[in-house]
């Protein structure tokens, strides 16, 4: 019996909702699986279904309006060439921001949608292979339907009325192609997720994995930094770009995705000439071919999902290695570290600080910014690391209940997780200090203060994690719902400021007042004593 598409769309909705439920369950740690908690997750899944779509559409509207506003009200009167370049960069920023949001909207959900066990209930029913494939594809579409189609429609409508129809069409096509490429990247990463998260059995593989994670974090950081920076430092980018030799400028302009944005910009400004039109059209065509290949790649992965099990290691005859039993806390810490490093979305935390700092350091060098710009980035990095203490709880996943069945105190669980955050913080502190020692000796005090504040960071993370555990276990709040809990958010922010960035703030004041560096160092050390006392006094 052949089912109609409408019917398959309905079944895909059930699959999609189950996937949302599992997404929340995946992040729900320490809350027991009692009936009330399950009901809450189920309710959250329904809410998430709508909130996600509405939120993302709002983001699209904000991005469109800011782009339209920017191109209509360029900050300074400029020459046609500079104007075209500015508009091209604004378009590029718009497209890359869209891709960035799509990536983070879909990555976790896509990973879950590709898990073969999600399809077990459907496999028991009398669906044909073809129907199952279509259901999987439709459920996949549901992840980003409102966002992708909404952004395309809004791009066409808004840019047609506010700019011109041709630019609007060009931007919509570029956006569509970029969405396809982004979705292929997401789907391919999700597919290889299981293999990637498998434990490494040799030191060489571990090293390769760490390098891959650093690379992944770098891409993450660049995706995060570049779109936001384009609008802010546009004049500097234009200046740098204009000072490049002609050949490099041409290559950059004709390389997608800048070429696509540039084509839309010259159409808008009217600085069109036959030669550049040919090259840009060629580049555009190549981009479209790439996106078409990506579309095919997506179909290949998704349509194979329902009846494919991803490869898992085969059991084999093994030669027992030494059974290594550590001390109580050492065992807990080693386990946490392994879980962290083997889950890509959490492993990022380990290198986020140094990588974000490195990205800004490169930009600082290239654009010859004042040193304070680089120092000021340390504040949000420390803040992000402090606040990520809540997320680190998620490494336990659903095995948290097993952990709680062992003779481990909640205090030690929090301590072990805080050490992971502190470890990440130390890596950041060492990288910053090393950088300052080589390139900016005058500012090295900031790096040293970050390192001195290791204890503060540990105590701050510990307090946040204890609070999160207390909330989830004692009041039954889901870990995912903590982000909506205002009092908890205020607490986290307060702790992050007091225990994370306060020493940096004091150092900045001392430096501005041109007081001796020793005062900053002594204050940071004195603060550590205070932090230690609050740790000892905590229940």
């Amino acid at each position, binding site marked *: 019996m052949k089912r109609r598409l409408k019917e398959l769309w309905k079944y895909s909705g059930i699959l999609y909702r189950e996937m949302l439920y599992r997404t929340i369950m995946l992040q729900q740690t320490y809350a*027991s*699986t*009692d*009936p*009330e908690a399950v009901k809450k997750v189920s309710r959250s899944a329904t809410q998430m279904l709508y909130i996600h779509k509405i939120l993302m559409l709002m983001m699209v509207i904000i991005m469109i309006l800011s782009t339209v506003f920017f191109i209509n009200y360029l900050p300074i009167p400029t020459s046609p060439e500079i104007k075209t370049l500015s508009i091209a960069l604004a378009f590029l920023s718009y497209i890359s921001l869209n891709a960035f949001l799509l990536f983070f909207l879909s990555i976790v959900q896509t990973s879950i949608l590709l898990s073969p066990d999600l399809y077990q209930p459907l496999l028991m029913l009398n669906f044909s292979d073809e129907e199952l494939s279509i259901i999987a594809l439709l459920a996949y579409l549901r992840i980003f339907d409102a966002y992708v189609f909404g952004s395309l429609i809004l791009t066409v409508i808004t840019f047609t009325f506010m700019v011109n129809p041709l630019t609007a069409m060009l931007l919509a096509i570029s956006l569509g192609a970029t969405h396809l490429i982004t979705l292929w990247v997401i789907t391919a990463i999700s597919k290889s997720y*299981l293999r990637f*998260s*498998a*434990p490494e*059995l040799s030191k060489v593989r571990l090293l390769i994995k760490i390098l891959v994670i650093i690379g992944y974090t770098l891409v993450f950081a660049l995706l995060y930094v570049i779109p936001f920076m384009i609008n802010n430092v546009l004049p500097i980018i234009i200046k740098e770009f204009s000072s490049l030799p002609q050949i490099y400028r041409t290559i950059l302009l004709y390389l997608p995705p800048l070429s696509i944005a540039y084509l839309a910009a010259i159409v808008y400004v009217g600085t069109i000439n036959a030669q550049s039109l040919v090259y840009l059209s060629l580049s555009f065509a190549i981009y479209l071919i790439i996106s078409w290949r990506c579309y095919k790649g997506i179909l290949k992965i998704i349509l194979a999902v329902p009846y494919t099990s991803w490869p*898992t*290691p085969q*059991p*084999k*005859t*093994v030669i*027992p*290695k030494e*059974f*290594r*039993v*550590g*001390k*109580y806390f*050492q*065992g*807990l810490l*080693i*386990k946490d570290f*392994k*879980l962290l490093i*083997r*889950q890509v979305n959490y492993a990022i935390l380990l290198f986020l600080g140094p990588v974000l700092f490195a990205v800004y350091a490169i930009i600082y060098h290239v654009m010859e910014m004042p040193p304070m710009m680089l120092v000021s980035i340390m504040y949000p990095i420390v803040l992000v690391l402090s606040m990520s203490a809540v997320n680190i709880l998620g490494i336990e*996943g*659903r*095995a948290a*209940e*097993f952990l*709680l*069945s*062992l*003779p*481990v*105190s909640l205090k030690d669980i929090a301590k072990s997780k805080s050490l992971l955050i502190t470890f990440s913080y130390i890596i950041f502190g060492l990288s910053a200090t090393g950088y300052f020692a080589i390139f900016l000796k005058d500012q090295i005090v900031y790096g040293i203060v970050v390192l001195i504040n290791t204890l503060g960071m540990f105590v701050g993370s510990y307090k946040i994690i204890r609070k999160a555990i207390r909330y989830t276990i004692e009041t039954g709040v889901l870990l995912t719902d903590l982000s909506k809990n205002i009092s908890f958010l205020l607490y986290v922010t307060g702790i992050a400021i007091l225990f994370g960035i306060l020493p940096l703030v004091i150092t900045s004041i001392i430096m501005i007042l041109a007081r001796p560096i020793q005062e900053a160092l002594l204050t940071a050390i004195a603060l550590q004593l205070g932090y230690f006392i609050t740790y000892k006094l905590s229940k």
Partner: protein
Amino acid sequence: MKNSVMISVKGLVKYYGTMRGVDGVSFEVRAGEIYGLLGPNGAGKTTTLKIIAGLLKPTAGEVRVMGISPVEDPVAVKKLIGYVPEEVVLYDSLTVMEFFEFVASVRGLDQSVWSWINTLMKSFEIMQYMYTPIGALSQGTKQKVAIIAALMHKPKILILDEPLKGLDARSARIFKELMQLHIKNNGAILFSTHIMDIAESICTRIGIIYNGKILAEGSVEDLRRMANEPTGDLEEVFLALTREREEVSHIIEELRRELSR
């Protein structure tokens, strides 16, 4: 000491919001016995076991495990027990070996435990999975891993929530023998199941739990007497005690009618 009380539960109550999970449950488990909590799905078995294991806090009532309250000192209780949950969810990205190393570390065991783990792994035929990530194992093999983790420190008390679920016949047999050996060594086992045959063949005493309450308690013979079913099997006894016999007969009749259409 033989017959000493290992687990004592008095007037245990647990509410989930407004829903009542457990409603005044009381029983004792003594050294040298396997106490089976027998009841249908949703009767309150898992909740009771989780409270005793220190995983949930009760709304009211008192629980003692070898004299220690899991509410006041959950870590001390967890040191004394081995717990196998109903739904086994372990760390998918750890290998079996890494997982055992972790459990041994937090239980404060030393290298010598390996020989015991090795014996258990051979008994349950999982040696070949030693370096396989847990996420790649079947549910039955995960169950075996969880059982070994619970037995690793040779605890005096085992709390087992449907432990035979997913085990193959060979492993189930070995595990049943292990349980008998455990009580011969003066250990105690609190065991939950909804399968009558298992309860009848394994348990020394059985508590029938239904809608969060213990309806009857005793050996299979005691329960037969209580249900006025001197020759009936445990299934008949259960249906009589829970007063579901008529309802079940009615449902079967209705099913028969529907199927004959």
